């Protein structure tokens, strides 16, 4: 699992490459918390290279969403792969999170 981020025009893009599971989930939460503390409260988590996610990974995303909202911003997800999409549906998390096609689109209308 490898995390990286890049500050774009209107948001910060966080990439989570690899398997976002129970081991890496707490790390994602820490990573995003740091990005928010660094001054970006509009976060897009780009999942194009996230081949696998479990419920702990998804739970960490909610934690990050809460942190971003409390900082006055938002967290969105983009480029969701089929397995992750399945997990979103299985846990009904697709009722909460919109999966945007690309990172650019995520804050496109806002």
């Amino acid at each position, binding site marked *: 699992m490898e995390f990286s981020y890049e500050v774009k025009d209107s948001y910060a893009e966080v990439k989570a490459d690899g398997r976002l599971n129970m081991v890496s989930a*707490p790390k994602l939460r820490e990573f995003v918390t740091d990005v928010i503390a660094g001054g970006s409260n509009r976060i897009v988590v780009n999942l194009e290279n996230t081949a696998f996610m479990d419920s702990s990974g998804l*739970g960490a995303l909610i934690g990050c969403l809460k942190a971003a909202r409390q900082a006055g911003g938002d967290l969105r997800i983009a480029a969701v792969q089929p397995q992750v999409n399945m997990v979103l549906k299985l*846990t*009904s*998390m697709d009722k909460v999170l919109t999966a945007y096609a690309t990172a650019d689109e995520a804050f496109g209308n*806002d």
Partner: protein
Amino acid sequence: MTRFWTRLVVVLTVLTGLNYIAWRWMSSLNWDAWWIALPLVAAETYSLIDVMLFGMTVWNLKIRKGAPEPPQDATVDVFITTYNEDLDMVLTTALAAQKIRHPHSTWILDDGARPELKALCEQHGLGYVTRSEDWTKDLPRHAKAGNLNNALMVTHGEFLLILDADQIPEPDILEKTLGYFNNRRVALVQTPQYFSNVPVSDPLGSQAPLFYGPIQQGKDGWNAAFFCGSNAILRREALMQLGLVGYVKETEKSIRRALAASRAAIRQARKSTDIESALVAEVLDEVEAATRDAQQEVDAGQPLAEVTYRVRRRVDAAVQTLVQADVAALQADLEEIAAMELAHVGESGVPVVADDAVERMSARDWSPLGALESVQAVLDALTVERTGEAQPVMPLATISVTEDMATAMRMHAMGWESVYHHEILAYGLAPEDIATMLTQRLRWAQGTIQVLLRENPLVQKGLKLGQRLMYFATMWTYLSGFAAVIYFAAPIIYLLLGILPVSSLSWDFFIRFIPFMVVNQLLFAVAGRGIPTWRGQQYSLALFPTWIKACTTAARNIWFGRPLGFAVTPKARQSGGPSWSLIRPQIVVSILLAVAAAVGIIRLATGLAEPLGTLVNVVWVVFDLVVMSILVRAVLYKGYEPATEPETREES
């Protein structure tokens, strides 16, 4: 072979039982004394359903032959939950947990946040977890469920072994159970809870051999063996999934509730006297439009994060416009004043409102909407942050003080499977005095009734019929207190007043009742295979005040939001002399029964009562008194004293 005999006796029990109860309803009721006749036949019907559910449980008794080889790379966290227990005891359990053979991390989950315990953990290389800073004072703590949920966020083992602070595990507990998880649908393996500080006579009825035996094995056969809070292994993925599903459900519910309340809140705000400026009215219009749109979007199934975000943005923008206008007016006023009193201002020039004033005054706590509390409350609830809880994701159910059963039921409803492994792999400590024992029983019963009232298994989506009935069976058992009162009242009423609830005690009665009673006892004997069940039968009747109190307090809690009066079961013996006051209702009932028997015999001697009725009722009274007699032993019980081993070792 045993299965054949068990099933045969189940069939016989059901047939004789239905035969008896049908006759009771249709042709035995003494309508002249309907006020006791109807309650009694209702109580008997209750008991028959109870026995039939037990029969259904043991029908599918599953005797497992042990788990396959466990996967060597499975990662495990061992959680030892504690709140205020004796540190020596916690440490003994933790050190035993450290010695479990399969690779794992051992954590003490200290809800008491005791520095001494933290130091002990550091000294012995144990993990130590207390509530994170998210658990602020104003948020519900959810007792043990909260403690576990908090720990789940800071650990990452694939499986979790949950142990109460007094449950000392065997080193092979994981080797014997992890293999079941090779089946990827298995989410839970429960092992028995057994207590090492209980004498053979078990005066407090601590051991539950029938439950941690035929009942759980039977439930296992229906894929409904449930989590009992300790000595169980859980799959993290299943718990987290439950947490996510719960998060989505709760979030949607609270958003819908807030939207439903928004119209009234806005109406109220418009009426309130604070509304003078047209601008505030405009903001309210915008809030109304935003919530109306949100309602449509939620109904159309749009993702909630987006919907709530849009509402927040629109309202923020409207508030900013309002503040901007106020600030502009203020600035204009200042300039006007400055123009009029130019001479006094002198060198300092025209005062200027700070640049960030608009931003600061629009912030949540300063916002003009803040004054409109009802509107603010609606807006605060339109969120996906689950602000009413310390963590958005709560894997263990928090709807009941017995989080274990509620959690297991939700797992089953999601399609997960459970296993009951019938082998003692941990040794715990039972209460050693009646007060503690009663607190513990009350808590279990309250929790079970809470689950029944909040998430009735009979109507939960996703459960199979057998699973529904298995959960319901356990809950049904806890209603026995009401039936017990009737069973005590009926003989008293007959012996004192000569009023019989049945139309006659004739051949018709005995020919139906006795076969049912006999096969009923046979069923317990066959299903129990020699397990001592008498103590359990005694307590299920004798603790009737506890069961009734559990039902009434749980119902008040759920329907009227009253507190349960919840207490953690103390693990150390309570001091003081025999506490007869704890069983006052039982003493009163026992005296009434004895007096009634005496009066009944006098009435018989004086020819006021008939022999058969008196005999049946006196036998009934004697049975009740024998049942209740266990409480005398329980009150007098002085705690466990290990039998002194005879000195066998030779001096060397």
